[in-house]
């Protein structure tokens, strides 16, 4: 089965430079049979990055992409706290540069319509939108989106596919929250490999809306791949989750950029 990993980072990986870290990540990915990795955010994270920090983190990802253009796919790190700067990064990294998606983290909750210009432009560029979400038992960060926040955003852009990062973390709640919003897709990454996440995602959303991701280097590829390999699903469904769905979602922009599918 082909495996494309939706959710990887340069943090938590050994190496002093983006190129070294990307190389280390790929060596480990090779052991697990992972063909391509989507990469976002830099070597040191900031929860509410300044425009300069956004640019620096995207520069680091660009360096990694340059070193491994055949294996890595970049998502530009943006922030709804800095719309103009984020639009500029979108132009620099996606419209002009090689990146193919947009990453939104925890600077500002995504239900706020202030984010809309960013989504409009990302959709124009066919860039795949990834929004981190969690429903933390102890409470979210102030700017941290929930799956319900993402549903509010997705309703304003029903034709734009978006990914619900971590399936809300507390996936029993998160998957329920997004199931009726057909342009939302579930990212399996970044939570413990608790039995049932993948089966539940497929039951509620259908296997065509579920994507494998690891959240490496914070997580292991193994624990996250186990959510798919260990699930009580058909091989056809597993193929969709491991790469088919992501390849389908990325195909418009990869084709537009002349990149291999």
């Amino acid at each position, binding site marked *: 089965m082909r495996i494309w990993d939706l959710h990887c980072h340069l943090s938590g990986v050994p190496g002093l430079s983006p190129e070294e870290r990307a190389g*280390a990540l790929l060596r480990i990915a090779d052991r697990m049979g992972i063909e391509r990795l989507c990469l976002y955010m830099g070597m040191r994270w900031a929860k509410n990055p300044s425009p300069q920090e956004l640019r620096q983190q995207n520069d680091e990802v660009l360096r990694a992409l340059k070193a491994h253009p055949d294996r890595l796919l970049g998502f530009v790190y943006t922030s709804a706290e800095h719309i103009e700067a984020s639009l500029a990064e979108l132009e620099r990294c996606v419209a002009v540069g090689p990146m193919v998606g947009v990453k939104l983290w925890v600077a500002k909750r995504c239900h706020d319509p202030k984010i809309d210009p960013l989504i409009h432009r990302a959709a124009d560029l066919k860039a795949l939108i990834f929004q981190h979400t969690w429903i933390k*038992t102890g409470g979210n960060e102030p700017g941290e989106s929930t799956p319900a926040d993402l549903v509010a955003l997705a309703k304003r852009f029903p034709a734009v596919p978006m990914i619900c990062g971590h399936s809300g973390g507390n996936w029993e709640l998160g998957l329920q929250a997004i199931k009726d919003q057909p342009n939302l897709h579930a990212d399996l990454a970044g939570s413990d490999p608790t*039995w049932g996440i993948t089966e539940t995602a497929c039951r509620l959303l259908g296997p065509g809306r579920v994507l494998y991701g690891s959240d490496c280097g914070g997580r*292991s590829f193994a624990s996250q791949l186990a959510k798919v390999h260990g699930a009580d699903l058909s091989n056809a469904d597993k193929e969709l989750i491991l790469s088919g769905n992501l390849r389908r979602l990325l195909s418009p922009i990869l084709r537009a950029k002349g990149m291999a599918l």
Partner: protein
Amino acid sequence: MKRRTLLLSSSAIALARVHGEELASPAATLVDCQLYIGDHPRRDLPQFTPSSWAALGLKQGWVGHFGAFSSEANHQALNAELRQRCADLPGSVAAQSLDLSQQTWRRDLEAALAATARSKALLRLCPSLHGYDWKHPALGELLTLCSQRSLPVQVVAKFEDARTQRQDRPLPPLSLREVPTICERLPQLRLMLLNINATEAQVQLRGCRNLWLDSAMIEGAAGLAGLLGHWPKDRLCLGSYAPFFYAAALPLKLQEAGLPGLDHQALAHQNASAFLG
């Protein structure tokens, strides 16, 4: 909800053929130090059956009972059921439970030991779920006894990510602060902490020489290999925490670690065998 049967055969096949590569003979070479049967207090989980055990291809698995998570469990009855269920699982070792906050724990311990071949006796404790910690006199007494009688003890340090627990039914973690002192006081004790993460191992448990860990909550890219840069190579074992976690993670973590042959074998089964004695 109706119980489902754990179907591991497809995952085992998939694991053996990831990207056309064969795993390093995962079948019948691995020891899983943390498995469970019975009903989980919060989730409806699949049950291990002899066929699913065979499909996973474990050489040995140490099986506890989810019923032991309850503060109201009758551990003598629970352990009797566990031993019976383990008799149907070739290669299984019953990880019998005690609740040291119950007055009956000494009686339950004697019953557990009397019914178990000495070479396979193993205890698994859940102090934080039963309302006590390392300072509880009964735990000190039990650990001293285990040290004197070379009885291996597993202690579950945590049960679930705090961010995903139900607010009305929390599963509290166990403090690790006293562990180095206990390890120093009882150098012959064979103690294994379950569900420790890499940061806890490197920071709070650093220097604990007679302490084993399992792999269930060791994360990070090639996380097991990373931990072995800071933790003794003969003190880390494989544990899946299945069926609460997908069992498939166990061989995949070993594959991801990319360890050289001797380290691979140590982690796969030798360290576990040494712990069990």
